[in-house]
């Protein structure tokens, strides 16, 4: 043999290049197969992103409430939790003395009273599309001790002065949406309890909060008493948010039992809300997962079919390759690489689509059901994409086995004869 011929250290590269050339030969068929894989992967990635993102968003939203336990008027606790998260409209109020009764419980580390009211957004009262502003009446010192991370946007403002009756602090989203700055006025139409007509009110913006990534961004804050009087509920409260000195299942149960004796009150652990909110969508997620699994199976069958077809079409060529020195393993590797290339391409394309489409998926999911969490609920992380690509590689590995084995075990004489 020619002494100039040297051992090759890049054989894998040569086989990959051969595989590509074979796949290019039937571009449409290859593209369709890749699309099938892409579609399945996009679904799987979106689902993964939804599971991860949703849990993350719920945990974040609830952790950012700052308190572990809520005391609120009786009703469905989960409705109550969503209400707290997104500011629903069916507000219910605690009797005014609940705060005084509860606040001296020795198990409590800190407690803050919150009054929630809904105002019609200024100037939109007569529009067909009414929008709402959530107003939180708060007790600033105790509220801040629960949420120490709340900060003003650089150089924009302060909390309310003690004697103020008409000062508001805006969450970052509200401020951005309404184009308000510190010193501007903030207008809202508020319907006081007992009235049928909304009353036009003007407030003064004294501070704008930095973005927190929670429902606080969309909230207008005012002093507890201003809010109560604006809504003409001078003694009432919506929520008592509190932290226990020791928080675990046992202390929570004790605390719950202790205060459930108050007739109109329910005690809600946010841990329990988290679990419930997550399980609420679990059914939906299982259904999407089932569809994704079917899509994956269909895509896999497509891949196997495509590769098998191309193996049979190339019977003659495979025989020739064997005649000119290809071992069984070489043919196996070649066909198997083709399968892998299809699966990897499909998964990369699918991931890209899922990545860019995550906004749409998010919109679609939110339009079907608003889960009342802020932040994105479809979160496509590199981890999710990594798993999808790895998963496709593994599936490609199995999908390729049979066609590759078929090709590898073709006998050269017969293949060449048949392949003519």
């Amino acid at each position, binding site marked *: *043999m*020619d002494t*100039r*011929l*040297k*051992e*090759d*250290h*890049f*054989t894998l590269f*040569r*086989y990959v290049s*051969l595989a590509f*050339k*074979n796949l*290019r*030969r039937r571009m449409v068929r290859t593209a369709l197969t890749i699309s099938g894989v892409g579609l399945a992967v996009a679904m799987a990635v979106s689902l993964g992103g939804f599971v991860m993102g949703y849990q993350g968003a719920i945990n974040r939203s609830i952790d950012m409430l700052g308190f572990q336990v809520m005391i609120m008027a009786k009703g469905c606790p989960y409705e109550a939790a969503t209400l707290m998260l997104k500011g629903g409209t069916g507000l219910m109020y605690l009797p005014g003395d609940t705060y005084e009764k509860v606040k001296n419980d020795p198990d409590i580390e800190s407690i803050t009273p919150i009054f929630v009211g809904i105002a019609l957004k200024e100037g939109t009262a007569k529009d067909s599309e009414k929008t709402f502003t959530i107003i939180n009446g708060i007790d600033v010192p105790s509220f801040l001790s629960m949420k120490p991370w709340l900060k003003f946007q650089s150089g924009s403002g302060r909390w309310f002065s003690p004697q103020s009756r008409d000062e508001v602090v805006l969450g970052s989203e509200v401020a951005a949406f309404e184009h308000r700055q510190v010193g501007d006025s903030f207008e809202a139409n508020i319907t006081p309890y007992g009235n049928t007509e909304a009353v036009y009110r003007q407030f003064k913006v004294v501070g704008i909060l930095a973005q927190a990534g929670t429902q606080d961004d969309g909230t207008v804050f005012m002093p507890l008493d201003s809010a109560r009087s604006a809504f003409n509920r001078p003694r009432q409260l919506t929520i008592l948010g509190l932290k226990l000195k020791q928080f675990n299942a046992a202390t929570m149960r004790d605390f719950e039992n202790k205060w459930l004796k108050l007739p109109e009150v329910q005690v809600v652990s946010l841990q329990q809300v988290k679990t419930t909110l997550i399980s609420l969508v679990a059914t939906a997620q299982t259904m999407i997962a089932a569809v994704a699994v079917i899509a994956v199976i269909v895509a896999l069958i497509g891949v196997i079919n495509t590769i098998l077809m191309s193996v049979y079409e190339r019977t*003659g*060529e495979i*025989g*020739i*390759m*064997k*005649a*000119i*020195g*290809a*071992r*069984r393993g*070489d043919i196996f590797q070649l066909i198997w690489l083709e399968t892998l290339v299809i699966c990897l391409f499909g998964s990369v394309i699918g991931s890209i689509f899922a990545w860019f489409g995550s906004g749409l998926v998010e919109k679609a999911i939110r339009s079907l059901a608003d889960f009342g969490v802020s932040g994105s609920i479809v979160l496509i992380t590199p981890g999710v994409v990594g798993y999808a690509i790895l998963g496709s590689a593994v599936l490609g590995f199995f999908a390729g086995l049979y066609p590759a084995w078929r090709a590898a075990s073709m*006998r*050269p*004489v017969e293949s*060449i004869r048949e*392949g*003519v």
Partner: protein
Amino acid sequence: MKRHYHRGSETVKALDGVDFSIHSGEMVSVLGPSGSGKTTLINLLSCLDAPTEGTMTVAGKSVTGLSEDQLVEVRRGVLGFVFQQFHLLPTLTVMENVELPLTFLGLKPHPQRTKEVLKLVGLLDRASHLPKELSGGQMQRVAIARALMIEPKILVADEPTGNLDKATGESIFGLFKELTQKGLAIIITTHNMAFGYEADRVMTLEDGKILKEEKRV
């Protein structure tokens, strides 16, 4: 050597006792009517198929009773093939087709050698063309170049001129003769008597048996 094909209860004696040898630098042609067992013989000689009965030795090594995987090892680097239908890979250029055997042998592409081989078959200027852009004769030359790439000791050609016109066929035979000068053993089947009798030795098969064997002087 014998090669029988079994079809149900029926046995086709495609080769029914053939005994001969080929030496390096020798060109042997196999003539015979259709169905006489030429292709069957060629497949055995090229280690693509195993005899039902009998023994065979290639380059000093016995290949009797070897499995398919072991036969590949014998083929690799020793045997070159040329087929009636050329069988080039349509997706690869002339150059890539010729280099392909190196890939399967785990050897680095060697453009210099590829060019030399292409020059030998007179197709250097077509190196970057695809097979479909070539004429039949040119495709057969590429197939020959591919077979020569690994410097085989034996070149096996089953009706290499079967799909070519007379003039092109002649030039292919001319090329084969040149190659035998370099010490290559060549065995060819053909229907064409005129071509067949250009070989050093002519073997005529009939019904799987050697009818006659003539040595040319």
